[in-house]
Structures are given as structure tokens and as C-alpha cells.
């Protein structure tokens, strides 16, 4: 059996290779102990509120823009699935209206 930290390194190698405009870019990771063991994952900073907050504030979207956003979501997930990874927790709270800072 592999040590958990090795499993993480393995998985990060896979995640690292996902490059898609609709998937938040992975920057790298580190393992620290302070005082509990923490996995630190570096990602691009995406400015804006999460999609659930966005919906809470603006209410239901017209189907055209909802479809547009959902297409982006599905395309991003396509890139993730292509690497053999399942998200398993996909929800509005995990999505951000697309606004990249850099």
C-alpha cells in the first residue's frame, strides 16, 4: 500500500495535466505539517463569487445564459473525465462565473 502522501503526489501529477479554460488551473502542491498534516494545493485565483451565491443574488437565469454556462461546465468536466478523474462533488458552490484574473 502506498503512503497517503505518495497517493497525493500521484494524483497531483494527473491533475496537473488538465489544461482547460473552464477548469481552474492547477499550479502545484505541497505537504506541510503545522501542526496537522495539510495538503496545500495552489490554483489560479479566480475573482468573483461562486455560482450558488450568484444565483441567490440574481435569481433564475434565462435559459439561454443558463445553457451557455452549463455548456462551459460540461466542457470543463469533459477535460477532467478525459484524465480519468471524477469530480464527485459538482455543484453551483464549486463553480465560478468565468472571470480569470491573469
Amino acid at each position: 500500500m502506498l503512503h497517503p502522501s505518495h497517493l497525493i503526489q500521484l494524483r497531483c501529477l494527473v491533475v496537473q495535466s488538465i489544461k482547460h479554460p473552464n477548469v481552474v488551473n492547477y499550479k502545484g502542491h505541497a505537504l506541510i505539517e503545522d501542526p496537522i498534516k495539510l495538503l496545500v494545493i495552489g490554483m489560479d485565483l479566480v475573482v468573483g463569487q461562486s455560482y450558488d451565491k450568484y444565483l441567490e443574488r440574481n435569481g433564475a437565469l434565462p435559459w439561454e445564459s443558463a445553457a451557455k454556462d452549463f455548456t462551459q461546465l460540461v466542457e470543463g468536466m469533459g477535460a477532467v473525465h478525459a484524465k480519468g478523474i471524477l469530480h464527485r462533488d459538482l455543484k453551483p458552490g464549486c463553480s465560478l462565473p468565468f472571470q480569470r484574473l491573469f
Partner: protein
Amino acid sequence: MKMDIDPAKESTFSAEAERLKKEIATFREELSSVSDKVESLQKKMVTMSTMERKILSVMDRKKKEGEKPRSVEIRGKTFTWHQDDKLGEGAMGSVFKAKAKDGTEVIALKLAEYTGSRNSREHENLMARTCPQC
């Protein structure tokens, strides 16, 4: 009506009075010693509360020190983040805004526990994926 003074009874009464006087004296002594004790205890309480305040202030300082910026090295670059810069909290852990020490980059950092402790869904997912026997 004639008052009979029984000398025997008289002496018993005076003896009783004497005894009561002595008892009162001992009670007084006891009372004064107790009040002394109370005073010293009160003084102790004051010292204890001063100590308590000191200990609390030290704990407070320690806590504040724990909140000073933390840093991590990712791909040869050092990123620092502060507890106040929390962007959000998910099932896996919290996300913080972090700055590169050289000032070239601002990124998001997700912190997740990876030992077999609770809240380590990230870890559970890993085990489920890579090691079905586990």
C-alpha cells in the same frame, strides 16, 4: 411571696454563666481566626486573578502569533497567506488567497487534511480511486 435563695442552685447558675462566658470567648477567638483566614484567602484570590489575567494574555499572544502569515513553497516559489484572507470553505478544506514572496503572483491555496482523520474527503477519494482494497 418569699424568694428562696438556694445557695447550691446559685452556685450552679454562676458556674453555668462562667462556662458560657468562656465559650463566648473561644467563639470570638475562632471568629477572629476565621476572618483572618478569609482575609488571606481573599488576598490569594486577588493574586490568582492577576495570574489568570497574565496567563490569558500570554495565551492570547500565542494565539495571535499562530495567526501570523504562513508560507509554503510550491514549485520553488514561496507563497505566504494570512488567516484573514480566506476566500471560502468547502467540504475538502478552506481556500485562501496567497501572495508570492517576490510579488509576481497571487494565487488561491486550498488546504486539506490528508491523514486518516475526519474531514479528509480528499484523502478518502484518493484511497477509493487508487487503492480499491483499502
